[in-house]
């Protein structure tokens, strides 16, 4: 039996860790070089599509299909990462996500004929980035640092990590996007002082304040809104255009996904233009009709003012949490495509009383920072250390639906807290603990993270058991829980039931499935390639049989060619490429005397020619 093995090229030094900016709209991959961080390939649009043959594609190719095949294409999936059905009702009104029934625990999206979860969709984007990186580096990539919005909660972080695993990447670290930007910026421009990073991207807004000191990047506070970004500006403009079109054309195109996609493109083009010219036009041609609306900067500014306003409150809260006055901020760094808008720059300048830095490409700086963090982990970048914080407080449910906070927001991570629990009735065997994340006092106003069931507590009178639980938020901002039975002295079993998101088993199954698929795809390609080769050698042989040289062959040589052809034709339709190749070689071998004869005949012909 022949075995199949992937050859990674033998002994190599530890492969490169890549830095990935997995954005709402666009994604990028970068790597740390001797000279600094470097973008590895072009921007990959965060769009995934299923083709007619069932193949899943990601990136620019998939974005093309947003207009042609909107029902089998998905974008902005980052908005759904780690979310439950109740979290995304607003999103569903504005984005054409097609949810399947049974989406309560984990959202399930319909993509053409396939049903996928948000982490799987993200995994396809990551896989595309991985391939691009491998092509650019000429070596396999297996480890990555991935950035997330600073204000992402535990479930959103876990979902991002799951996506990495499904894509075949070991996620060594999740880094907060504004922090990554600060790393890229700080290494480049400044190494002492206090900087504010204003990160206004496609779908999320973050503000972080850091102190830079002797190579240490210490995040003092972070704040944000995971429901606020450039998409909101687009949606606003789309709403206005839809109403215009309704009155101009007399038709409501809001349910026509292709029309809305075209309109989305049109408003994005107008929005982007307005960062550079005073007047632009939203221009849509559809079904032989045309809609054109002129929009000037003054009107645009008045429309988006409320959206920009929503970014300023988190900025003020962040300053307060950092315990700093505005004049303590030395620099303001702008990140994210939406910071190209002049009004955004003006408002930020007004708030911080500093001209914000815009010289770094706002689309690239996060990926570059992720590469710096990858360099720190890989050991290429020494003397630089990142101390980040958790954006949200962690607590447990107590009597009356109240939250008892264990780890406060803006605590440097890793951070931990230990809490003792006991039983309420005699002989109680289980204690259920509900962990939440958020700033509010009531459980119902916070985000449910997980329920832990402490099991197999030895029967004893009420209040006698003493189980100590350690809550630990790791450097990725993800919660880990361990429990000790202090009286029994043994490690207590903890069953973690995440309130939202995939269980470990589900992720494992997806990894396995994607691996099996990748393997099947690979095998299929091998078979296809072997058949193509068989086709060409069969055709060549058939042609050679017409040659005079064939007739000059010995009988047994001719017989062995015929046998080899027959044997190849027999295995041709099997799906074993090894077998096809073996018979291919056999035919190749059998036709060698024929090939030599043909050569000789040709040479004779040529020689004859020269004699003339």
């Amino acid at each position, binding site marked *: 039996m022949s075995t199949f093995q992937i050859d990674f090229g033998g002994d190599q030094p*530890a492969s490169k860790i890549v830095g990935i900016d997995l954005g709402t709209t666009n994604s990028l991959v970068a790597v740390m070089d001797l000279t600094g961080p470097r973008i590895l390939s072009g921007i990959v649009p965060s769009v995934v599509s299923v083709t007619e043959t069932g193949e899943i594609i990601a990136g620019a190719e998939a974005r093309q299909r947003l207009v042609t095949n909107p029902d089998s294409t998905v974008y902005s999936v980052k908005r759904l990462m780690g979310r439950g059905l109740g979290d995304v009702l607003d999103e569903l009104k504005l984005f054409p996500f097609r949810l399947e029934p049974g989406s309560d625990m984990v959202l399930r999206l319909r993509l053409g004929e396939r049903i996928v979860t948000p982490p799987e969709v993200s995994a396809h984007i990551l896989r595309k980035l991985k391939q691009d990186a491998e092509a650019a580096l000429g070596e396999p990539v297996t480890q990555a640092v991935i950035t997330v919005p600073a204000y992402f909660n535990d479930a959103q972080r876990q979902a991002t990590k799951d996506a990495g695993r499904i894509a075949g990447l070991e996620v*060594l*670290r999740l880094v907060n996007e504004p922090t990554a930007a600060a790393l890229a910026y700080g290494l480049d421009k400044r190494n002492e002082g206090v900087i504010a990073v204003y990160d206004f991207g496609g779908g999320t807004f973050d503000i972080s304040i850091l102190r830079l*000191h*002797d190579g*240490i990047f210490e995040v003092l506070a972070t704040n944000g809104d995971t429901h606020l970004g450039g998409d909101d500006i687009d949606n606003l403009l789309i709403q206005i255009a839809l109403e215009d079109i309704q009155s101009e054309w007399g038709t409501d195109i809001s349910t026509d996904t292709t029309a809305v996609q075209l309109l989305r493109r049109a408003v994005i083009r107008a929005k982007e233009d307005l960062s550079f010219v005073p007047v632009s036009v939203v221009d849509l041609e559809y079904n032989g009709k045309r809609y054109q609306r002129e929009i000037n900067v003054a009107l645009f500014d008045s429309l988006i003012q409320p959206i920009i306003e929503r970014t300023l409150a988190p900025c003020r809260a962040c300053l307060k949490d950092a315990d700093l006055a505005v004049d303590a901020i030395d620099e303001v760094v702008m990140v994210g495509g939406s910071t190209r808008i002049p009004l955004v720059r003006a408002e930020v300048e007004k708030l911080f009383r500093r001209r914000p830095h815009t010289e770094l490409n706002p689309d690239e700086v996060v990926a570059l920072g992720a590469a710096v*963090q990858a360099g*720190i*982990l*890989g*050991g290429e970048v020494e003397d630089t*250390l*990142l*101390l980040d914080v958790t954006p949200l407080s962690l607590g447990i449910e107590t009597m009356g639906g109240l939250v008892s906070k264990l780890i406060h927001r803006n*605590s*440097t*991570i*890793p*951070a*931990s*807290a230990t809490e003792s629990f006991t039983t309420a009735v005699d002989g109680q065997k289980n204690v259920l603990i509900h962990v939440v994340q958020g700033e509010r006092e009531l459980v119902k106003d916070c985000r449910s993270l997980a329920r832990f069931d402490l099991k197999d507590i030895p029967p004893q009178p009420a209040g006698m058991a003493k189980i100590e639980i350690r809550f*630990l938020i*790791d*450097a990725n901002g993800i919660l880990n829980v361990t429990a000790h039975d202090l009286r029994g002295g043994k490690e207590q079993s903890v069953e973690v039931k995440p309130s939202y998101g995939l269980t470990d088993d589900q992720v494992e199954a997806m990894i396995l499935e994607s691996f099996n698929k990748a393997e099947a795809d690979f095998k299929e390609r091998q078979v296809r390639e072997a058949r193509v080769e068989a086709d060409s050698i069969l055709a060549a042989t058939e042609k050679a049989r017409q040659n005079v040289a064939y007739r000059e062959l010995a009988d047994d040589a001719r017989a062995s060619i015929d046998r080899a052809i027959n044997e190849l034709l027999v295995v041709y339709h099997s799906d074993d490429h090894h077998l096809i190749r073996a018979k291919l070689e056999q035919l190749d071998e059998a036709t060698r005397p024929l090939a030599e004869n043909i050569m000789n005949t040709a040479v004779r012909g040529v020689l004859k020619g020269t004699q003339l």
Partner: protein
Amino acid sequence: MRFYEALGLDPKLALDAEDLKKRFYERSREWHPDKFSRRSPEEQKKALDMTAVLNDAFRTLRDPITRAEYFLEERGLGPSKTPPPELLEEVFELNMALEELREGDASARPQLEEAQKRFHEMRGEIDEGLADLFAKHDANTDAATLSEIRAALDRRRYVSNLLRDVGKALE
């Protein structure tokens, strides 16, 4: 005491803020999980635990109040549940004023603003007194000073709660 050990310090109530920060940064550079990403899982786990405790320690010790609360807790002197008796009369009147304001009687406002100012000053005095008590305890390590500190912390916690409630009502 674990948090003091994590930063290589003797258990004292008065600490130098700059020295504390320096120790924290030094140890972070040594133990942060970033420095262990290519090591064995056991080493990674140790680094994670060490750093978590280091961060918890720095967060607790850099603020004099949380530091003293931790110190007392470790000595088995947790916060007392009863309000400081000397404040009872004042608090009674304050609660009435708060109630009036909540019911829409704006005439209670000046009284509350006055109280807010007074409690601010009171807290400032408590903090000054605590600094002296810290120094005294570090020199003698006597139980009497420790219970004085505990009483001052209880008072301070109570005053802070009042300030929070008054602040909320006035907003």
